[in-house]
């Protein structure tokens, strides 16, 4: 978490105007045996909201992308089911095909009014709220 704070401060100091954090969806779902990772991820996700609120007046947008835990190398069997429903999409997500396009979107001018948001790209597992 300390590294995340330093990274945000560094990006702000460098004058970047599109800040994006990427976290596993266990930030929102929690995970047995992985409370430390879930806590860190959720702390980063909410720091995004704080930064978006504080830096918005300077034209800086700050957003979060939440992806399936396996993209972080987290053992999904350990995480367990986070929904009573199966994943909406049959395919597994990949960094190149699913994460990178969302980074491109959040970085683009098209997203100039998008800030403090969490874009969840996990194949339709976590749908709350």
């Amino acid at each position, binding site marked *: 978490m300390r590294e995340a704070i330093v990274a945000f*401060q560094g990006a702000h100091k460098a004058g970047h105007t599109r800040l994006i954090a990427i976290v596993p969806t266990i930030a929102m779902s*929690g995970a047995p*045996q992985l*409370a430390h990772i879930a*806590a860190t991820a*959720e702390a980063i996700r909410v720091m995004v909201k*704080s930064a*978006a*609120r504080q830096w918005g007046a300077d034209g800086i947008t700050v957003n979060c992308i939440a992806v399936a835990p396996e993209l972080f190398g987290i053992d999904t069997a350990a995480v367990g089911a986070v929904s009573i429903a199966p994943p909406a999409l049959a395919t597994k997500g990949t960094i190149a095909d699913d994460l990178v396009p969302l980074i491109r979107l959040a970085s683009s001018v098209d997203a100039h009014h998008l800030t403090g948001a969490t874009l969840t790209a996990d194949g339709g597992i976590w749908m709350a709220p």
Partner: protein
Amino acid sequence: MTSFPSANSGRLAGRTAIVTGAGQGVGEGIARRLASEGANVVIAARRAVTGEPVAESIQALGGSAICVETDITNRESVAACVASTVQRFGALHIMVHNAFRGGLPHKLEEADLDRHWKHMSQTGVWAVLHTGQAAWPHLRDAGRHGRFIIVTSPSGVEGSANIPLYSPVKAAERAIAKSLAREWGPSGVTVNCVAPVAASPALLSAFERSPALQAALEARTPLGRVGDPESDIGSVALFFASDDSAYVTGQTIVCDGGSFLGL
């Protein structure tokens, strides 16, 4: 002898609860509400000078309470508090982590890792781990009566422009609650969060400095007032502590008069 102001039907008779940061404010309100329903309450306060009067006033109303001076940032101190509790009352059914220090306004780009993040995370995130780990064997023994309740904040859901690093601390607490809810669920133990906006000493002090703040806060609150630590917030904690919430776990009740309507 006078009686507790809140309704008392003995819902927690025979149960024992520790409430951290119960020397004042929300923690005191929760402790009083749990005691009013018959719980033995341990006032875990950083300084006995604040905790003892709370315990004595509960005793004066016919309740069961003791004060145990506890530094929640110190794992051994928390473990000693739990050991004292079990020695005195024979069991621990309910752990309420409420204590918190920090939350001063700051700019994120200028935040000091030690002064802001470390300071707040010690009484927030780390103290949740200390209290949870120390309480766990006893909560497990309490089975379906075992309760871990964490006092977090609406800011931990929404983020904050004024105190940006306070929000992640409170968010981390919620993620731990969800994780432990799933981890401890098979034992029957529930883990939930209360996110209050309440008339704590810190908020009342802020109102004194800025009456406009109070007016603004009340204006944006559908119920038009700030919560009372005992009757409003304590009653929500009581729900989580009682058998009424036996099938509720991993949840957060935002108890703020309706300001946050995010779900």
